């Protein structure tokens, strides 16, 4: 039923039925993806162009290709590109991870922050800053360890003859609130200067990224994103409920474990690179779903929307108050929320699909 309804909604799907290639082409989804790619490229160049030393658009393109004035190449490639690329990759990671979790649990509120990963990362980092337990690891590593550790804890606690998605979420909520409490307590206990430093990380930040951070993130994404895309078929059946999915031949347990691992990996490395940038993982899939007019959050479009939100927020954060650079996580709400609200008001669909 869902598939039929979805087909009808996308107006005129083409069914390619020339073996060995067959499948459904959704013109609107493809169009939306193309438009998103274009917008992301544009914002990336724009983000690289502005700053204390403005570079014109043609020069940016030339410098990205490695030619042109050596000074400009240095500024563009060494100083500004890592920041922009981190924003792009983090956005893609959060968007795809959010889409995975929301589809798997069939709940638009089930963003990965809900099950405690970002909170765990936050607690680890704040403890490092406030209590001085840094141990020379650096904030990024602490964040990564915190996120992965929390994920493992949640999975182990939820394990009882297998782990169902619903139990994982409920256990995750419990763990997530314990982490939040710990973070709040540490923030209230810490000295004001430390509290401010910790808060700066806690809202998500793209300032001062270097190539080494981009490399780590890019490497994990090269592994995880194709895995996420390859599971698309499982996602579509899981969304119909576990019983139906099993009936359609999906190995439910394996599918859920793989999806969970991919989602957790994406969110953990993303958080380590930029801090828990709020709202992206929750909003991007919902925005993409409404843009593409599908019945589920489309993975590629979700990732692109995530990148668009993060890059756009970064631009706003740098430009809105001249002289100060707000952390990007503060702006994602301001940029993403109106879009989501507008789409919510505009889309006219009754029932729980809302």
């Amino acid at each position, binding site marked *: 039923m869902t598939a039929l309804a979805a087909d009808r909604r996308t107006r005129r799907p083409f069914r390619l039925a020339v073996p060995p290639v067959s499948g459904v082409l959704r013109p609107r989804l493809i169009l939306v993806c193309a438009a998103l790619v274009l917008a992301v490229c544009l914002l990336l160049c724009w983000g690289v162009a502005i700053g204390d030393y403005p570079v014109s658009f043609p020069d940016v393109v030339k410098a990205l290709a490695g030619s042109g004035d050596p000074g400009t190449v240095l500024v563009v490639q060494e100083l500004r590109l890592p920041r922009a690329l981190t924003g792009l990759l983090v956005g893609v990671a959060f968007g795809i991870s959010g889409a995975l979790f929301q589809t798997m649990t069939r*709940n*638009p*509120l089930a963003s990965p922050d*809900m099950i405690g990963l970002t909170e765990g990362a936050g607690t680890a980092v704040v403890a490092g800053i406030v209590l001085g337990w840094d141990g020379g690891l650096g904030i990024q590593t602490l964040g990564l360890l915190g996120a992965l550790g929390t994920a493992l804890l949640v999975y182990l*606690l*939820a394990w*009882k003859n297998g782990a*169902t998605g*619903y*139990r994982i979420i*409920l*256990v995750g*909520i*419990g*763990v997530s*609130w*314990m982490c*939040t*409490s*710990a973070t*709040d*307590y540490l*923030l*209230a206990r810490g000295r*004001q200067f430390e*509290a*401010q430093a910790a*808060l*700066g990380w806690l*809202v998500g930040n793209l300032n001062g990224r270097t190539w080494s951070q981009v490399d780590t993130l890019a490497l994990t994404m090269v592994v995880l994103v194709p895995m996420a895309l390859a599971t698309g078929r499982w996602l579509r059946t899981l969304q119909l409920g576990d019983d139906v999915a099993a009936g359609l031949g999906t190995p439910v347990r394996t599918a859920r474990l793989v999806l969970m691992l991919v989602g957790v990996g994406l969110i953990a490395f993303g958080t380590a690179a930029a801090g828990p940038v*709020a*709202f992206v993982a*929750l*909003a991007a899939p*919902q925005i993409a779903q409404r843009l593409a007019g599908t019945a589920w959050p489309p993975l590629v479009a979700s990732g692109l929307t995530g990148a668009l939100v993060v890059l756009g927020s970064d631009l706003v954060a740098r430009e809105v108050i001249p002289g*100060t650079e*707000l*952390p990007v*996580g*503060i*702006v*994602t*709400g*301001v940029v*993403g*929320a*109106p879009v*989501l*609200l507008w789409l*919510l*008001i*505009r*889309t*006219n*669909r*009754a*029932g*729980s*699909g*809302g």
Partner: protein
Amino acid sequence: MNRRRSLRPVLLCVLLALLLTALCLLSIALGAVSIPPGQALRALFGHPDSQLTQNIIWSARVPRTALGLAAGAALGLSGALMQALTRNPLADPGILGVSAGAAFGIVLAIAVLGVGSLYGYVWFAFAGALAASVVVFVLGRSGRSGATPVKLALAGVAVTSLLFSLTNAIVLTDPDALNRYRFWSVGSLADQDSDVVLRILPFLGVGALLALAMAPALNSLALGDDVAASLGRRLHLVRLQGVTAVMLLTGAAVAVIGPVVFLGLVVPHIARILSQYAGIGPDNRWLLPLSAVLAPCLLLAADIVGRMVDRPVEIQAGALVAFIGGPFFIALVRRRKLAEV
């Protein structure tokens, strides 16, 4: 239905009432100066052993306990209400923009208007909470299909994150605001005037009445919008009533004790699991009162523990609620084969 089974809900209620009474007594007796229960009881009923115990109990402990009871019950009730209203087990009262609105109100009062005292900014928090939830409801019900659960939840999340962004932007650029905000945001029952409880009580009372009165309507709503409509429920009115109740309950509670959202999210789940044990099932006529009793138990327990661990320094109740409730919640979730809500 056999007789033993029908006794179980009553037993559950009696047990919970006993637990709550015991916690109230403990909350009155324990603290930086511990008072033996006998003396505490005598002071409560007007025969104090000394002026000192009289003062401690009536000017510090009783208002604090009353605040814990009132705010806890309000948060638990509005949590259960919110989850039934949006038909989403992950919804909490904060999702309606209430906590975010309150936080924004407080930060605005501190940073822009220079309001210094707690007493002054409680009202800004309340105003912020009310304004935010009205905006969420209006946005959530616009469009031709009216207010659907998903739209309401998503509109709430969007407005919440918008407001939190603005709050954080102010807090990060204004160190003074950060300093006061971080203490409010941890959630504390201490140092509150007894006046504050009395002043928020009317709001809580009206909210609680509205909430409890709509339990049967929520039961119909659980069957889906169409079924509820064909059972004669007017969906718009039910949603309006529910949102008003959540707004009053959470707005008042959060304004005073800070955003202790964990209670609203988790207590309804605990109530649901307990009611499964008692053989009642997910009946909102039981779930709402159960949540209203369980939440203050948890809040008072957290407050008492916060006073005792590190005497005479106190740890704020809001920071401890999750630490005391979390493990208990996880254990319950693990024990029971969960019915999907």
